[in-house]
């Protein structure tokens, strides 16, 4: 049996345990492709955009932008080709939901792609899969081939008169290619260095043409919205953040894994009830709620609904829904070392604040962990991270600065103790 099945399923992950769900026949036998048939044959692109806008679906790739609104930016009367890009470059540490959808529900993602392409009048979709997910890319390519043979894709998709094809492109190991314009550069055969905006991809995207970039999970919600209507979707989750999402729980919990739950489910419910809490009778010390780039919360602040409107009040965000749990043996300076190393390693280097700032953050954290830090280092950490925010071409520098600010905000005493004792006071913490 597939070893990575979700512990809690919902409409997105129903059937993912069944092996034939990855085939066209198996997907159709469970009602698949009916929503796309309805959209392409009975609806106009505007109708589809209106439905998705009315559903309130927010992008699930980290930024949470309203999907229908993004689609509405695309030209209705383009003077040449438009494109859809499916961002399958899942690389945010703590996130592993898109991999499940690609490997176990490829036709659902493809159905969302075809509907999204129809709504945005895209003639081609490029699915950019991170290079490390070679297995997922193989499964997904087989599904594309089945759909070409069956006439679901091609000049006359589903017999509707709408022409569409899907190309799978493999990345090659660069976190920054998850940033949408870094992805576009990579897709065009260049280093994945993000572009200045404006122009936005809806104006000038892939190959100079209007382009929509949507995350894998975002597109997987779309067939369900078309099939069941926006009201149904709004009946799940919170008023501002409707629908379910795939929370990934990792770190110090008894049952790490994926959980499909409505947005707005409380973080403590996910950590303690669903994931079984911290094993070995230990206590929670910190939880990162949305992937490595989001500020961590201390144990006392887990009574928060997992939706952007409520997490924002605690100074953090939903991100990609990757929940990383740390127990009370954990040294937060070591956590900061691992985090800052990652961002230092992955900075594309084109903006000074990011290229230099990520290096400084890492050097300072390492010095403090070694026991060689000084009181003033904490202020330098704060100042360097503040000077990176909002100063660069893309949000990577912010994503590198926020976690450090979170660690300093809630776990300052860990940093101070290292300086005071001139060594790490957490001998039982995970090894660096």
């Amino acid at each position, binding site marked *: 049996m597939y070893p990575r099945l979700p512990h809690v399923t919902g409409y997105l992950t129903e059937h993912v345990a069944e092996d034939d769900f990855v085939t066209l026949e198996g997907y159709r036998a469970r009602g698949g492709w009916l929503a796309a048939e309805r959209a392409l044959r009975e609806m106009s692109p505007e109708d589809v955009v209106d439905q998705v806008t009315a559903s309130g679906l927010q992008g699930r790739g980290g930024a949470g932008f309203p999907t229908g609104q993004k689609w509405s930016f695309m030209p209705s009367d383009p003077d040449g080709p438009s494109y859809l890009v499916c961002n399958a470059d899942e690389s945010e540490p703590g996130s592993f939901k898109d991999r499940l959808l690609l490997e176990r529900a490829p036709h659902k993602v493809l159905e969302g792609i075809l509907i999204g392409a129809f709504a945005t009048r895209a003639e081609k979709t490029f699915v950019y899969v991170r290079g490390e997910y070679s*297995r997922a890319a193989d499964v997904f390519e087989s599904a594309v081939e089945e759909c070409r043979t069956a006439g679901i894709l091609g000049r006359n998709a589903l017999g509707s008169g709408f022409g569409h094809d899907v190309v799978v492109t*493999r990345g090659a190991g660069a976190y920054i290619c998850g940033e949408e314009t870094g992805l576009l550069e990579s897709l065009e055969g260049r280093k994945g260095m993000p572009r200045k905006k404006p122009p936005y991809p809806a104006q000038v995207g892939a190959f100079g043409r209007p382009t929509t970039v949507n995350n894998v999970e975002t597109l997987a919600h779309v067939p369900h919205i078309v099939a069941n209507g926006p009201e149904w979707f709004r009946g799940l989750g919170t008023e501002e953040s409707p629908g379910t999402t795939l929370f*990934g729980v990792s770190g110090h919990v008894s049952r790490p894994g994926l959980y499909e739950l409505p947005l707005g489910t409380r973080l403590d419910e996910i950590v303690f009830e669903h994931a079984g809490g911290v094993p070995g009778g230990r206590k929670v010390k910190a939880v990162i709620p949305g992937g490595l780039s989001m500020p961590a919360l201390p144990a006392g602040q887990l009574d928060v609904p997992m939706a952007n409107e409520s997490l924002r009040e605690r100074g953090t965000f939903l991100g990609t829904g990757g929940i990383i749990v740390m127990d009370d043996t954990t040294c937060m300076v070591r956590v900061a070392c691992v985090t800052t190393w990652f961002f230092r390693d992955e900075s594309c280097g084109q903006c000074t604040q990011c290229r230099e700032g990520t290096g400084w953050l890492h050097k300072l954290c390492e010095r403090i962990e070694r026991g060689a830090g000084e009181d003033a280092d904490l202020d330098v950490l704060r100042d360097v991270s503040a000077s990176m925010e909002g100063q660069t071409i893309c949000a990577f520098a912010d994503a590198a600065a926020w976690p450090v600010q979170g660690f300093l905000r809630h776990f300052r005493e860990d940093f101070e103790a290292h300086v005071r004792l001139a060594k790490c006071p957490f001998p039982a913490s*995970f090894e660096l």
Partner: protein
Amino acid sequence: MVIPEAARDAIDAAIGRYPEPRAALLPALHIVQRELGCVPLEAARELAAIFAVAPVEVLELLSFYNLFRVEPGGRHRVNVCTNLPCSLRGARALLRGLEAHLGVAAGETTRDGRITLGHEECLGACAWAPMLRIDGDYHENLDLEDAKRLLDGLE
């Protein structure tokens, strides 16, 4: 010519899938690496000629993207994920243990040319940590003994 003819055909097919030929440069690098085990300088030169770009533009891609390599390394590439979710569950201790077991440091190749050991950033297997990747395949929920057995079984 170091790029074999079959690979050349696959590269031409890739070029046909994109609105601009240059977009097939990354796919072409994957194709070459699959055939040759790496992308040697001579292959990079040939790719530059095929795509009508300066050789340095191909070399830039080779240094920017982690998955490409210019030297073949060991027969198997073993990479331990050491990002935070894996580290919390002992990935770095696992990597140290494998370094000791193989007698190499991360980034090095065993003397018999069997294994290049390395570490890698998040591979999207956070709930099944610690884990490592052997060539294209994931091996998850490992302890040091499991991992040693896996490596000992490699040809």
